[in-house]
């Protein structure tokens, strides 16, 4: 029988304990999918959670507007105003990409055409692009939304350590060159983004968030984009600025294969790692090596199962993951990135049903056979 409130369920698993059921929470649910699930755009975050049986929320919601594609909030043009005075419900506190942006007309999905932080001279763009991290308006609005919508759910803010901001605002190729050509520029850009995030976190620490979801991609499916030595020289000193400012539990998100650098990354002190992409890492190996140190989140495949597979395949995969890594708690089930608007709606429902079926503690070993 489920006897924990969703927030307690999430926080228990995040602290590597055994809750009453494997919690389910997503880093993002794209607004188009939210709308398909709810059949409308004017719903509260908790209503979406209740309908799906999900245990918490963060990210952004179409309430107050029409559903838009995932990264639209990160478009740089006019970012400051939309950051201070968001028109739609959001719990995101990420800096804009300092980049020339483009958009696909058919979907509205935005993308980075070209990073703009390519020289010492370009550092002046920080003033133009970055909002004032101490501006009170966004914090006040979000505090009101938390008070209105939180209920029994776990609520998280999405932030960055600054690494993804540095890489994307420079461009991955330019970053690779700059490690050799302009190492000082790489460090300075990372430092500035990290110091901005640390200031934001100081405000968020005072708010009613339960944890943070920290999104900084550092790898592709094959390997991290840097060696351990580069991580220590170009990333760690700045990631630590944010990590030290954080006073709540936090989940670190990076796509790809982190195994070559995971020992080092974990010294930053995160409570959980996400999303353990099946095409990049074996969740059993991750759980075996690191399950005693951090909560594991993720691993329901987005490349095939949720997007192209059948509800039966989703059911089977949820069962396999719960069996493989959920036995002793410390596991939060999520998709292996986020629920994108091209996930099949029936597969999201299959995931919801399978979590209820297989995820109750003590786990029913007969059911999991």
């Amino acid at each position, binding site marked *: 029988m489920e006897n924990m409130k969703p927030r307690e369920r999430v926080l228990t698993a995040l602290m590597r304990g055994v809750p009453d059921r494997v919690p389910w929470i997503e880093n993002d649910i794209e607004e188009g999918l939210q709308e398909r699930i709810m059949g409308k755009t004017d719903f509260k975050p908790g209503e979406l959670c209740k309908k799906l049986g999900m245990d918490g929320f963060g990210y952004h919601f179409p309430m107050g507007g029409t559903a838009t594609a995932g990264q639209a909030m990160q478009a740089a043009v006019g970012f400051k105003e939309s950051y201070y005075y968001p028109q739609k419900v959001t719990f995101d506190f990420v800096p804009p990409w300092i980049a020339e942006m*483009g958009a*696909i007309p*058919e*979907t509205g*999905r935005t*993308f*980075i055409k070209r990073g703009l932080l390519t020289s010492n001279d370009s550092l002046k763009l920080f003033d133009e692009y970055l909002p004032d991290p101490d501006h009170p308006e966004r914090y006040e609005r979000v505090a009101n939304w938390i008070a209105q919508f939180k209920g029994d759910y776990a609520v998280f803010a999405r932030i960055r350590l600054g690494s993804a901001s540095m890489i994307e605002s420079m461009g*991955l*190729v330019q*970053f*690779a*060159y700059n*490690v*050799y050509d302009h190492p000082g520029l790489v460090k300075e850009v990372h430092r500035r983004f990290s110091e901005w995030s640390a200031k934001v976190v100081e405000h968020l620490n005072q708010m009613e968030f339960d944890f943070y979801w920290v999104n900084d991609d550092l790898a*592709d*499916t*094959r*390997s*991290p*984009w*840097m*060696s351990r030595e*580069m991580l220590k020289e170009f990333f760690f000193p700045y990631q630590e600025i944010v990590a030290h400012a954080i006073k709540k539990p936090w989940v670190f998100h990076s796509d790809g294969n982190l195994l*070559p650098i995971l020992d080092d990354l974990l010294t930053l002190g995160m409570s959980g790692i996400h999303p353990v992409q099946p*095409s990049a890492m074996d969740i059993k190996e991750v759980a075996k090596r690191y399950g005693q140190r951090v909560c594991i989140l993720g691993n329901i495949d*987005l*490349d*095939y199962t949720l*997007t*192209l597979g059948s509800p039966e395949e989703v059911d089977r995969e949820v069962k396999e993951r719960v069996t493989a890594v959920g036995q002793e708690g410390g596991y939060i089930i999520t998709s292996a990135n986020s629920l*994108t608007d*091209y996930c099949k709606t029936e597969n999201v429902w299959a995931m919801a049903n399978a979590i209820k079926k297989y995820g109750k503690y003590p786990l029913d070993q007969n059911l999991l056979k």
Partner: protein
Amino acid sequence: MTVVTNIHHELREAIIRGKREAMEPLIRKALSKGFRSEEIMNAMMIPAMDEVGDRFAKGEIYLPEMMIAARTMNTGLDILRPLLLSSGVASKAKAVIGTVKGDIHDVGKNIVAMMLQSAGYELFDLGIDVAPEKFVEAVKTHEPQFVLLSALLTLTMLMMGETINALQKAGLRGKVKVGVGGAPVTERFAVRIGADFYGQEARAAVIKCNKLISTVE
């Protein structure tokens, strides 16, 4: 023979360590010792870049090391190109590459492009969100031997099949070998949509193109 060993070694070291400023003096030195431009490219530089590619594929080196090596290689190829052309040596082959329609991700595509270019291929990079008809147009214009399609999303990888169909309809399918790659792509998917090959990572794409080169016009 000491001279041969030295210049091989020096060019290899310059590429592996990404010392692009060393390329011009070293290539001049090799030419002054009587090596032909084709020999310098095929026997000295490409093997060095192959070594970099192999080490990258094995996880012994990381993206920045690979990228500066590729940049150095391309600096060398730029220096050699006029000499290669004047002696009638064409590029190894031509390839058109792009991320398919609807997809905005270009990290993997850029790495493959960089590695192919530094392996001696002439590259036409169409960028991201490339519609099937753009690939068709590029094949007509550039007459490549290879068309390489990239996608990061399950949603957009289906567009790889559409692109292959468009090449078929335009009567161009038999003229090119089509390779596909990207996080959600699998060998099985590649076969299903009628691609000629699948590259699990960048180095694999280069190796497969090298193997198929003799089978294309």
